[in-house]
């Protein structure tokens, strides 16, 4: 005999089992009407495969299992399907659920059925399917589909099979009587389960109050070759609880949040074993079960073999109900069963007991008194919880604390409520707390999802805006370049005042739009009473100022166009310079605001980021426009200009380098973690400086001839400066700038390093813009040259850009398609390839001229 491992707690309620074991199991009468719910198990409801008016035979499939966790439903007797509609079903909620109603014809006519000749000869998978198709679900109470428990993955190795015959709830004797009368069915079932799971040992757990059943079972086991141990456990509720029985028989505890199979154990109810035997060996689906009908209000308490779908009142009548005495009708045991208010509710696969209780037997609970923390509940709890603490937490809705006290390990066995001297309905409090926590968690999940969706949408919209802006800027830049060509081809040192006005108009319009945006952002922030209202307010004021300035500039230019002969465009350049400077300042401020917002982790960060990006492009644009104007203004002196610029760039690079070196020295002294990064930065800056110097030298070399040529014609045909080098220069500057910015973000914002870095960034920004301006100037010259050759370089560039954009767009939509798993992927991919080819071709042509 194996050792028994006691579990903590437990109670000894009056057993009340003797009443219903005096007479043998008798078949209940076939009712006139069967009501068969399509969901009698845990999992997905079965799908009806008959329709109203169909004639069905006993054992015929009427609803088929759907999904992995589900079982089939069969007709319990022959007759006609009268109705498929929601009806009252046995469920604690008292809600209605879909049922198939059958008008029985009294013939009780079986469909052709036969079991498997030798289940060992069929593949295991087929056998498991067979069990599922015969509607076997756990008959202990929960109704978990049996096939799922028999079909464990390779990650579960079953050491121990436990057959649960404890039947610890008072009143219930269905398993007891089943063992006494049909032990051979049980053994047959165990053999089948053994064949499927191949456990190393098999234990049958049974309480010591079933002496008769134990004897019968021992006899029956003599005829089997299996090594089965009957383990008699002391009568104590809830020893039949799966976790408690496992502990009792094996000493193993199922870890919290796991299933027994995770520790190599599978538990099956003894009634389920018998049902498996009937299905596999005789082909009989689960259409009937043994139900204990007992309680003080029936004069003949007994066990009945009941067809699934039989209304409870049929059973009560069979057991001679006394309606006058009936006060409470319980389905299941007195500890965990639920009351039903309607005696036409049908018996289902999990209904093991009907208690028709009198008022004396189950009196209404007296009013709850105050908890005196007596701790009796704690001594009774089989899950080793602190029920009284959980009660206080549930009552005061301190759900976090309740969870911390392992509320979800409560099995709702009711032992604590049973012993509570103050009559506190403890289990109800736990159910309440669990539901509240579950609802809260579901709510939280929903909110999180909504937030993610919203943020994704917001980001997408911002991205669209930025893309649009970039495209617009590209077009504007091209237009500006074209303008520059026009200007140079006119060979006048004048700017067309009309164009200038147009530009200024655009600038004014842009600033106005910005103003509006800033205003709406400000209003939004105010509405949300956001933290950075002050910041936004400032931004708004700046934008307002900019708008006014732009407007004034426009007006002045218009006036100037009327009045002046516009021989000199120097003032315009100045204005543009100011504009560029203003744009830069704005950009800096916005960057600062962004940083602050990021530090605060504020919601408006995304918007601010977009604003900064916008301002960045704007600042670059302004700078470019300024550079363009300057370049076109001094096209004749382009060479010397660029030489001066290069000189300046070299000087600045040198300065930057020196500062960076100083910063690095400080950082190394302070053991700053950023020192490594800064070291790399300094190295880069050094190479940059060298590059700038060499560029200057190159320029100096080429200057002589180009000046000579320029005296002859215009600077159109001068020997080209290496455009690629310039481009590289620009991109290097950009990278450096970005790196410095990143570095700044990484360093502590209050340190001296940070402010130094900030300065450096400003300087790098200027350098970058200057390099870019230089590049633009060179490009302008080239465009002119191309124009002289009769090729519209501008058009070519636009075409190339468009082609590239089309390709990018296609790529994006392909990505989207992939995400949404739609089918026109191939078409899109083909399109993408064409677009890419087109873009490549154009880029190639373009590169020939550059």
């Amino acid at each position, binding site marked *: 005999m194996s050792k028994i491992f006691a579990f903590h707690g437990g*109670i000894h*309620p*009056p057993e009340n089992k003797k009443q219903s074991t005096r007479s043998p199991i008798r078949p209940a009468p076939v009712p006139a009407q069967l009501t068969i719910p399509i969901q009698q198990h845990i999992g997905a409801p079965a799908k009806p495969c008959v329709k109203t008016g169909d004639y069905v035979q006993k054992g015929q499939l009427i609803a088929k299992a759907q999904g992995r966790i589900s079982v089939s439903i069969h007709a319990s007797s022959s007759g006609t399907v009268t109705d498929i509609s929601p009806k009252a079903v046995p469920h*604690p909620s*008292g809600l209605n659920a879909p049922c198939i109603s059958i008008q029985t014809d009294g013939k009780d006519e079986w469909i052709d059925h036969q079991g498997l000749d030798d289940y060992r000869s069929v593949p295991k998978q087929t056998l498991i399917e067979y069990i599922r198709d015969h509607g076997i679900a756990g008959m202990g109470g929960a109704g978990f589909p049996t096939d799922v428990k028999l079909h464990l993955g390779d990650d579960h190795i079953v050491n121990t099979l436990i057959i649960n015959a404890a039947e610890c709830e*008072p009143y219930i004797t269905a398993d007891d009587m089943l063992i006494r009368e049909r032990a051979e069915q049980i053994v047959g079932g165990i053999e089948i389960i053994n064949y499927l799971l191949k456990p190393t040992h098999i234990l049958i757990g049974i309480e010591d109050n079933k002496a008769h059943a134990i004897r019968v079972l021992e006899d029956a086991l003599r005829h089997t070759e299996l090594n089965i141990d009957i383990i008699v456990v002391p009568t104590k509720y809830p020893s039949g609880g799966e976790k408690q029985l496992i*502990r009792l028989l094996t000493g193993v*505890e199922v*870890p*919290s*949040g796991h299933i027994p199979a995770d520790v190599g154990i599978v538990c099956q109810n003894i009634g389920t074993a018998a049902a498996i035997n009937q299905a596999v060996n005789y082909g009989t689906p689960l259409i009937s079960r043994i139900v204990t009908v007992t309680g003080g209000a029936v004069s003949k308490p007994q066990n009945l073999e009941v067809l699934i779908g039989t209304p409870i009142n049929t059973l009560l009548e069979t057991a001679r109900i006394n*309606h006058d005495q009936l006060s*409470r009708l*319980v389905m*299941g045991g*007195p*500890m*965990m*069963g639920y*009351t*039903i*208010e309607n005696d036409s509710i049908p018996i289902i696969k999990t209904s093991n007991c009907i*208690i028709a209780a009198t008022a004396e037997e*189950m009196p209404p*609970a*007296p009013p709850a*008194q*105050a908890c*005196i*923390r*007596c*701790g*009796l509940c*704690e*001594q009774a709890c089989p*899950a*080793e*919880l*602190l029920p*009284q*603490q959980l009660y206080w937490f549930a009552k005061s809705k301190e759900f*976090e*604390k309740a*969870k*911390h*006290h*392992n509320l979800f*390990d409560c099995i*709702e066995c*009711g032992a604590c*409520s*049973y*012993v*509570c*001297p*103050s*009559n506190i*309905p403890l*289990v*109800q409090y736990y159910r309440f707390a669990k539901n509240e926590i579950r609802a809260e968690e579901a709510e939280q999940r929903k909110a999180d999802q909504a937030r993610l969706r919203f943020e994704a949408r917001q980001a997408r919209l911002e991205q669209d805006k930025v893309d649009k802006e970039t495209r617009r800027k590209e077009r504007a830049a091209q237009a500006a370049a074209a303008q520059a060509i026009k200007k140079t081809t006119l060979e006048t040192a004048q700017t067309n005042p009309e164009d200038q006005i147009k530009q200024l108009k655009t600038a004014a319009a842009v600033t106005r739009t910005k103003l509006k945006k800033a205003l709406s952002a400000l209003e939004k922030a105010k509405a949300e009473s956001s933290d950075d209202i002050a910041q936004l307010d400032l931004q708004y004021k700046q934008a307002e100022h900019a708008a006014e300035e732009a407007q004034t500039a426009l007006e002045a230019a218009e006036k100037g166009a009327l009045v002046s002969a516009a021989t000199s465009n120097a003032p315009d350049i100045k204005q543009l310079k100011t504009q560029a400077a203003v744009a830069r300042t704005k950009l800096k401020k916005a960057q600062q605001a962004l940083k602050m917002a990021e530090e605060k982790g504020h919601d408006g960060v995304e918007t601010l980021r977009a604003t900064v990006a916008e301002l960045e492009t704007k600042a670059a644009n302004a700078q470019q426009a300024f550079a363009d104007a300057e370049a076109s203004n001094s096209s004749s002196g382009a060479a010397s200009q660029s030489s001066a610029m290069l000189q300046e760039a070299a000087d600045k690079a040198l300065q930057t380098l020196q500062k960076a070196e100083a910063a690095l020295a400080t950082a190394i002294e302070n053991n700053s973690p950023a020192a490594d990064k800064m070291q790399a930065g300094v190295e880069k800056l050094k190479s940059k400086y060298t590059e700038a110097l060499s560029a200057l030298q190159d320029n100096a070399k080429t200057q002589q001839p180009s000046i000579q040529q320029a005296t002859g014609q215009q600077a159109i045909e001068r020997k080209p400066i290496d455009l690629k080098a310039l481009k590289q220069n620009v991109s290097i500057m950009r990278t450096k700038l970005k790196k410095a910015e990143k570095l700044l973000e990484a360093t502590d914002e209050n340190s001296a390093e940070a402010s130094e870095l900030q300065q450096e960034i400003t300087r790098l920004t200027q350098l970058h813009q200057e390099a870019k301006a230089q590049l633009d100037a060179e490009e302008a010259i080239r465009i002119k040259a191309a124009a002289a050759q009769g090729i519209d370089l501008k058009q070519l560039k636009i075409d190339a850009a468009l082609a590239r954009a089309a390709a990018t767009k296609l790529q994006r939509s392909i990505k989207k398609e992939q995400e949404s798993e739609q089918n026109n992927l191939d078409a899109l991919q083909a399109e993408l390839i064409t677009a890419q080819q087109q873009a490549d071709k154009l880029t190639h042509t373009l590169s020939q001229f550059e």
Partner: protein
Amino acid sequence: MALIRITSPHVHKPVNTAGIMRLVILATLPGLLAMTFFFGWGTLINIIWASLLAVTFEAICIKARNRPLYFYLKDYSAILTAVLIALALPPFVPWWLTAVAVFVAIVVAKQLYGGIGQNPFNPAMVAYALVLISFPLEMTRWTAPFMLQGDGWNILGFVDTLQLIFGGWSEHADAFTSATPLDVMRHRGGLTTEEAWRASDVLANVGAWHAVSAAYFMGGILLLYKKIFSWHTPAAVLISLGAMSTLFYVISPDTYADPFFHLTVGGTILGAFFIATDPVSSATSNKGKIWFGIGIGVLIFTIRTWGNYPDAVAFSILLMNLAAPFIDQYTQPRTYGHKAPNSGLKGKA
């Protein structure tokens, strides 16, 4: 058919709070008998007087709080508190002192905190500590176990006792007053324990105190058997006090009283079984109850030996009542299927 709809469980153990309280009161009977046998009618009269007051105060409070009167009165908790106060007080305290104590226990320490189940401190001990500090003279008027002297019952009869309690202190009674053994032990001057034992006739009569403790012990065992409380608290109190006193007794038998003396004299047994086990104000889990009891035992010895008061059960229990919520945070049991118990306020989510 009018069937009721109730969630499980549908059966209930035939126990209730009133039953538990009654059983605890019943378990004090051996102690009461012993007290009466050795110290006369005083304790019995005090119990009746205190119970009357307790029920009255309780009723007034319940009415004032608009609660159902009978529903709360029938739980016997007020009477239990009164009984414990009366058992703890010296047998011949004046009536008004008992009234003050009961008022403090029922009104201040219990009802003002929200009634039964809501009091953080044991009401009887709050009352006892208050009168001990406020009325030191009356509270030290213990008597010698005079019943042992010849015709004890005639020395101070029932009527005499009534007069003594309700009529006022008489010179006549001074003849019976005596210090308690703990007093003697605490204030023995420069004597060693050995010398004190020989010199004091109070200590010569210490057998009476042993007998009273034995009677309380019997009552406590009954409650343990009936599973009214678990063994953890009383065992922890007695073992820790025993260990503490043994340790010091072994170090210096001349300076410190022996462990048997500590365990059987004064309120140790009454406190360990009837007061420290008050579930409302003690720690919750079994583990917590052990820590709670250890704290009480250590404090009893500490205060008795080095403190100003000769007995320390009330103070020790009140101090540990204060610590009980804290103990609860760190003494959760290990739940089925968990590797280790949770502890602290929240821990890992």
